[in-house]
């Protein structure tokens, strides 16, 4: 252990001791200030835990905070204090689960809007309950707990929220959250169950908020809905987290401390103009400091824990059987009654003019679209109707015709996300090694730490392939992966695909580059207007008059 590290530990321990002993030497005003800093730290850190990486901005902090405070007000007189805190946690988790289940499946904007109104909704429901059931609005809460005890509870809760955030960041779910924030579709096709990850973390963050509300409740003595559900709290939390930087664990603290002090000064000197100044400060922060004072998100994450062995798979028969699959978009039959089989280790080409339904077919295979009819069997599992992440975990990976990389994540992290959520998560420590091997294989070894958004188009395509391979797939779908490459890149690309085949990979490629189809495919399928019009060995198929007519038009056209 180096001298600086020992020094660091000493300073850390001294700070912790000072924080714990704070109520013993701070007087009333400074203790109250300490309490404010602590509870905003917990709220802002819990907020950033979910909203930072996913960018699902939650404007509902006070909904959960208020729920906790109200639980304490209702149960505080009759129940022992730990039971009250537990009840607040359970209620927070429950409401988060209901809200999350109904809105987190939707795109981010609907979640934001809903969270914006959630506090008002819960406030009105509480008022309704109090008027109709309790027959009076507002409750008194007399508690024997002193301010010192309140402070220590908050200190303990803050420690918990940091430990939880740290563990989350180290686990594969932390990376999954950031992948979701960067590109939810791509995350889904990397094997991440986006809805479940989002819901879990949203619930965790909400529990911290509602417990904070319960702990803080005795401070008011009298609680009514307009105190407990004051929208200003949601607003302050968002400002603090964004000022500090929502992308990292300790970022929000950097916003909490200066802003709590500033709010103290403002409420003392300009109480009537508080909201105006706060709004103006917030606008400035959003305009000037989009990533907070902590600056760019640092690239942190370590090898994750592992679980489970690879499932046993049936190794006989064709790998993929597509039977009578069709897809209609309100009257337009994009794909009509398509059937084919793919044997293990084979490369099958799907060709056809633009608009013939090739990408629609791939979208159905990978789960992005639900087939209107027909069945798809992959190995021994029927996969039609499964969600993309399930199909990805079964070992069917894809690339996109219009590349979808998670642009804020580095090249290595893009691959790691797929590695950690694939069919067989690697044993500890292997992630870095495996991602290095995959990136070397596609020729991106040198660009490991570049943000994926900065890659050229070709390199993004390579990255997509590496990400698909990271799932250790049994079948890879390449959607015009060779399109837009120059002749020498095309040669490298074809060689790379051939190498994959020689390694035993099964591939379906949609392609317009006929040289590649001739060079690689043992078998190909020609589609036109949604149906298969020819199939067989590439050379024969490409000279078929029907195929020529589909591409070039009939004589009389």
């Amino acid at each position, binding site marked *: 252990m180096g001298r600086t590290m020992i020094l660091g530990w000493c300073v850390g321990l001294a700070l912790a001791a000072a924080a714990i002993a704070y109520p013993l030497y701070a007087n009333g005003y400074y203790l109250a200030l300490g309490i404010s800093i602590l509870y905003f730290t917990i709220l802002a850190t819990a907020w950033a835990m979910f909203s930072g990486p996913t*960018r699902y*901005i939650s*404007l509902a902090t006070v909904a959960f905070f208020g729920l906790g405070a109200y639980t304490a007000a209702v149960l505080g007189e009759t129940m022992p204090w730990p039971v009250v805190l537990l009840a607040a946690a359970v209620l927070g988790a429950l409401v988060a689960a209901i809200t999350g289940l*109904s*809105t987190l*499946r*939707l*795109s*981010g*904007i*609907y979640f*934001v*809007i*809903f969270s*914006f*109104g959630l506090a*008002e*909704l819960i406030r*009105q*429901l509480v*008022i*309704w309950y109090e*008027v*109709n059931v309790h027959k009076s609005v507002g409750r008194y809460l007399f508690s024997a707990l002193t301010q010192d005890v309140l402070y220590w509870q908050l200190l303990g809760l803050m420690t918990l929220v940091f430990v939880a955030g740290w563990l989350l960041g180290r686990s594969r779910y932390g990376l999954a959250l950031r992948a979701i924030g960067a590109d939810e579709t791509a995350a889904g096709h990397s094997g991440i169950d986006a809805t479940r990850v989002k819901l879990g973390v949203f619930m965790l963050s909400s529990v911290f908020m509602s417990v904070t509300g319960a702990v803080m409740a005795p401070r008011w003595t009298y609680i009514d809905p307009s105190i407990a559900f004051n*929208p*200003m709290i949601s*607003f302050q939390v*968002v400002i603090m987290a*964004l000022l500090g930087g929502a992308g990292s664990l300790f970022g929000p603290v950097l916003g909490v401390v200066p802003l709590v002090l500033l709010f103290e000064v403002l409420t003392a000197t300009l109480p*009537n*103009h*508080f*909201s*105006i*100044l*706060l*709004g*103006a*400060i*917030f*606008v400035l922060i*959003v*305009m000037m400091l*989009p990533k907070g004072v902590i600056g760019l998100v640092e690239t942190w994450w370590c090898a994750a824990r592992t679980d489970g062995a690879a499932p046993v798979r049936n190794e006989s028969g064709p790998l993929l059987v597509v039977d009578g699959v069709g897809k209609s*978009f*309100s009257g337009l039959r994009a794909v009509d009654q398509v059937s084919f089989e793919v044997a293990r280790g084979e490369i099958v080409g799907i060709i056809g003019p633009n608009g013939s339904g090739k990408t629609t077919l791939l979208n159905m295979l990978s789960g992005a679209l639900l087939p209107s009819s027909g069945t798809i069997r992959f190995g021994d599992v029927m996969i039609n109707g499964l969600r993309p992440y399930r199909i990805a975990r079964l070992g069917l990976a894809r690339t996109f015709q219009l590349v979808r990389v998670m*642009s804020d994540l580095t090249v290595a992290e893009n691959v790691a996300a797929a590695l950690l959520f694939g069919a067989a998560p690697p044993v500890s420590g292997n992630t870095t090694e495996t991602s290095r091997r995959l990136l070397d294989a596609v020729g991106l070894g040198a660009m490991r730490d570049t943000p994926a*958004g900065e890659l050229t188009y070709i390199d993004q395509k390579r990255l997509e392939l590496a990400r698909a391979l990271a799932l250790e797939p049994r079948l890879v779908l390449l959607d015009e992966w060779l399109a837009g490459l120059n002749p020498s890149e095309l040669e490298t690309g074809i060689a790379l695909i051939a190498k994959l085949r020689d390694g035993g990979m099964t591939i379906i490629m949609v392609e317009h580059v006929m040289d590649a189809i001739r060079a690689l495919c043992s078998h190909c399928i020609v589609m036109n207007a949604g149906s298969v019009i020819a199939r067989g060995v590439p050379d024969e198929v490409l000279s078929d008059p029907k195929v020529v007519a589909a591409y070039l038009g009939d004589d009389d056209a």
Partner: protein
Amino acid sequence: MLLFDIVLPGLVLGGMYALIALGLTLQYGVARVMNLSYGESLVAAAFGALSLYTGLGLSPLAALLLAVPFAFLLNWLLYRFLLERLMRRGKDRSAQEIDSILVTFGVLFVIQGIMLVAFGGQYYSYSYLSIAVVVLGSTLAVNRLVALLFAAGIGIAVYIALTRTRMGTAARAIAVDANAARLVGIDVSSLSALVFACGGGLVAVGGVLISMFLTFNASMGVVFTMKALVVVIMGGVGNVMGALVAGLILGIVETAVARLVDPGLTLAATYALFLAVLLIRPTGLFGRAPS
């Protein structure tokens, strides 16, 4: 008869919702700015009408002539000086939406703070054209009917402007894809600013008209924002006719819940309706299904 007692007042209430949502249809549906300070702007317009009526004796309908150009100018400045930069900074539409939500969240508190300083927290109302008329056995107030007529008139005018004019077509092109619109020679930033400002003008119309019959205070903007959002999303983002119909549906549902269940649960009913629409048809009742 109970049915008429629900349907007619429901339609009138719904007309008001359609009216307050029209501005947001333009601001969010076309200019793609999710404006969280929307309700506060609406309440500010209501306060403006109140001040003109009690101070100068100016009728709310005449106040429109002052309030609309003023709101247009303010919103144009807001877009030019704040939002436009965010639109340029955002990498994609979702980043732009999140940024615009955050900035307008700040603007919300600025407007609300100004109103709290000027008017305090208490409720205000005044009475104008509150003459009762009996329609099919239900008692309705003339001022609410005026609001309904304005909603229908403005809705149709906006619809025609968007679908039948050159400028409207360009605005719809921006709503679909700003980059593609740029390629065909549309000046995206000035036209977006214009559309956003027009939306702001419509907010002022809504605010002035509802001040004739609603009791309001400085901190109730969020309720209007949510109702406008629900109407816009239910009707299909950017779909003016959809917003009109969705407003009417929302009005009838709320009146029915207030009459048959409990008036304290109308907001809950609004949210339930909102969630149901999002879960069943996320593109709105009249939005096109995504391909």
